[in-house]
C-alpha cells in the first residue's frame, strides 16, 4: 500500500545509522528544543526511549530524512516512537484532543463535520458537489482551510479562479475528511489508516480522476502515503501556473509590492515544487520577488507541521516564524507569500506586529486577475 520506504522494515534502517549528525545539523528544532533527532535514532538502536517526550518537538519538515546519507529516515523513526507513546496512551492532552477529534469529527480541530463545506456555501458563486459533475476533478480542502475563517479564503479564491478558467471541479461537501497527514506524523497509525481508507473509498465512490490539493500537507499524504489506489494529485499552484502560462487566466492589475516567498516544507523540500509559486508571483506586474537566504530546499520550517499545532510546548524559545518575519523585514518585504495554510497561520501571527502581510499565493493572484 505505502510507497517506498514509509512502512518497510525500519529497524534495519535504524541499525544502519552511522551517527554522522547530519540530521541534527539539518533539524530546525536542534539546539533550541531538547529534541536531538540523532540521539532519538541512537537510543532506538539500544531500544531505550528515555527522552521520548522530546519527540513531540519534531515539525516533520523532513530535512533529516531527505538528507540522511544512510537513508535511515530519522523523521520516520521518530514517528515510530510517537506511535509507541500513542499506543501506550501517554500523550499530552492537547495532542490527545487533536487525535480524538480526528477520530470523532474527522478533523483535528473538533469542528462539526456538517459545517465542513460552509466556506463554499458562503461563496458568492456556485461550487458544485463532486457527485453532480461529469469530469471528476476534486478540490480537496485542508481542515484548517475548511474551518478557519482566515484560511477560508484559500478554497474560495482557488474555486473562483478555477470556475473563471472554465475548469470543472467539485468538492466532497460533508464527506470530506482530514487527509491524515499530520495524524500519521503524530504517530496514530491506525487512525491515519482509517482516514486514508475513508478518503480512498470516497474517491472511488465518485470515480475521482484528479485531485487538486490546496494544502501541501494533503498533497503529500495523497501523493506519497495513500498508495496506488489514490488518484493523481496536483497542488493548486501547479494548476494556477499552468492556467497563467497558457493564457487562460490573465493578470490584469498590478500588485506593486515586494513579496518574499516562503517555501512550505511539504511543498518544497519534500515534494520538489519550488518553481510554480515563484512563477506565479513573477508573472504579476509590479511584484518584486525577493528570496530568503534560506529558501527552496533550505527553507526554514514555520513549525506548524508534524502536530506542532497541537503540542503544548512547555519551553520558551524563539519561534522560527519570528526569525522568518525578521528576515522578511530586513529584506524590505511588504508581503510574505505562502502556499500552505499552516505557514499562513504561523507566520501571520508573528508578522502582524511587524506590519508585514502574510498572504497565500491564491490571495495575491485573485487580487490581480482580469
Amino acid at each position, binding site marked *: 500500500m505505502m510507497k517506498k520506504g514509509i512502512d518497510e522494515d525500519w529497524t534495519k534502517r535504524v541499525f544502519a545509522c552511522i551517527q554522522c549528525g547530519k540530521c541534527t545539523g539539518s533539524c530546525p528544532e536542534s539546539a533550541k528544543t531538547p529534541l536531538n533527532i540523532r540521539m532519538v535514532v541512537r537510543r532506538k538502536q539500544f531500544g531505550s526511549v528515555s527522552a521520548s517526550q522530546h519527540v513531540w518537538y519534531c515539525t516533520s519538515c523532513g530535512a533529516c530524512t531527505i538528507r540522511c546519507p544512510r537513508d535511515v529516515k530519522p523523521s520516520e523513526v521518530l514517528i515510530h516512537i510517537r506511535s509507541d507513546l500513542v499506543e501506550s496512551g501517554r500523550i499530552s492532552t*492537547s495532542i490527545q484532543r487533536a487525535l480524538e477529534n480526528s477520530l470523532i469529527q474527522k478533523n483535528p480541530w*473538533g469542528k462539526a463535520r456538517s459545517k465542513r463545506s460552509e466556506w463554499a456555501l458562503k461563496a458568492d458563486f456556485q461550487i458544485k458537489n463532486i457527485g453532480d459533475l461529469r469530469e471528476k476533478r476534486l478540490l480537496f480542502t485542508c481542515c484548517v482551510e475548511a474551518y478557519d475563517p*482566515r*484560511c477560508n479564503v484559500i478554497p474560495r479564491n482557488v474555486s473562483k479562479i478555477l470556475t473563471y478558467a472554465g475548469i470543472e471541479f467539485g468538492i466532497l461537501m460533508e464527506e470530506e475528511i482530514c487527509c491524515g497527514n499530520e495524524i500519521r506524523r503524530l504517530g496514530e497509525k491506525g487512525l491515519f489508516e482509517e482516514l486514508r481508507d475513508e478518503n480512498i473509498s470516497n474517491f472511488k465512490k465518485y470515480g475521482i480522476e484528479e485531485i487538486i490539493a490546496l494544502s501541501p500537507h494533503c498533497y503529500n499524504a495523497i501523493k506519497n502515503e495513500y498508495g496506488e489506489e489514490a488518484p493523481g494529485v496536483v497542488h493548486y499552484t501547479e494548476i494556477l501556473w499552468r492556467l497563467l502560462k497558457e493564457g487562460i487566466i490573465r493578470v490584469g492589475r498590478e500588485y506593486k509590492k515586494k513579496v518574499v516567498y516562503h517555501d512550505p516544507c511539504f511543498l518544497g523540500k519534500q515534494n520538489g515544487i519550488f518553481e510554480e509559486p515563484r512563477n506565479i508571483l513573477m508573472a504579476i506586474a509590479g511584484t518584486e520577488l525577493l528570496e530568503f537566504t534560506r529558501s527552496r530546499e533550505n527553507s526554514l520550517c514555520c513549525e506548524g507541521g508534524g502536530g506542532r*499545532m497541537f503540542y503544548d510546548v512547555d519551553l520558551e524559545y524563539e519561534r522560527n516564524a519570528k526569525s522568518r518575519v525578521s528576515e522578511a523585514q530586513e529584506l524590505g518585504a511588504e508581503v510574505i507569500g505562502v502556499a500552505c495554510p499552516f505557514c499562513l497561520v504561523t507566520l501571520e501571527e508573528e508578522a502582524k*506586529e511587524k506590519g508585514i502581510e502574510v498572504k497565500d499565493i491564491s490571495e495575491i493572484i485573485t487580487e490581480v486577475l482580469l
Partner: protein
Amino acid sequence: MSYGLIMADVRRGLFDERNLDLVGFCNVLNIDPWLILPKGAYNVREAYFKRIIQVEMGEEEFINPLNAVITVKKVIEKFGDPFALIFSASSSGMEIAPYVAGYLKSPIITDVSGYQKESGTLLKSLYSDKVFASLKIKGEGFFVITVRSGSFRHEAREIEENTIYEKLEGLTRDERRRFLGYIEEEKQEVDITKADFLLSIGRGVGTKDEIPLYEELASLLGATISGSRPVIDKKWLPKSRQVGTSGKTVKPKVYLAMGISGAFQHVSGMKDSECIIAVNKDPEAPIFQYAHYGIIADMHKIRDRLIQILREK
C-alpha cells in the same frame, strides 16, 4: 393544597439565594412551599414558606444523601405525599435528588428551567442548552426535580398567612458515608482550566509594562489572568496561562477577552466558555463572532475605568 417539599440548599451556615428559585417553582405550580432545614441559625426568608420543618441534624449530616433519604421518608410518613420533592441544581441538590428519587423509585427531572402552565410541562435543557425539551411526568405519585439557578427566582412570593414551624426529631443516621471536612482549593499553581472567570489578554496589550495593571484588574475582579499565544511567547505571562490549541482549553463561566483578535487556534481553546465578553478596538476582529457581549474600545481605557470603579467600591 398539596405541598412542594423543598430540601434547603445550605452550605457552611449559609442559606443560599438559590432556594428562592425553589420557592418560585412552587408558586408557579401553585403548591405550598414547605422547607426542610437542618439545625443552625440560617438567614431563612421565612415569609416565603408555608411550613418550615427543622431537622434534628447538623448541616453536614443533613446534606448527606444517605441521611436525606431518612429525613424525606420521615416527613412523608408524618405529612403524607408531597406533590413534588424539590432541590436546587447545586452540588448538594444534584447529589441528593437522584439518590432520594432512586430510593423512592420516583420519577425525576433535573435542571428544570421553566414551566408551561397550559400543557403542564417542565422545560429542561439538553445538549448544553442547544435544545430544550418540554417534559411531562407520567403516572401516579410524586416526582423529584432539581431547579436551575436563576430560573424561578422572580416568581417567588411571600405567603400571606403565618409560617408553620415543625421540628423533626429522633432520626437515625446512616454511618456508611461520613463528612470529614472541607478543603479549600490550593492556590499555588493556578490551573486556568478550573477558573470560573478568566481575564484573558492578547497582543493588543502592547507592552510588558501594561501587564501589572491587568493583573491588578484581575485581582479586583476576582478573575484569573490568562493570555493568548503572543503574550505567552513574549514571556509576559507564564506558559501555564496560555489559552488555545497549543495551550489550555478552557470553559469558564465568563471569559473576558481583552485585546484578543480571535485567531483560530485561540478561539478553539475558549469558544465553549459560558459567556464570552470581548473588548477590542477593531470592530472587525473575529473574536466578536464568538462573543456574547462586545465592547468596541481601547482595552486600556476600559481597564483603567474598571479599576477606578472597583477601587471606589
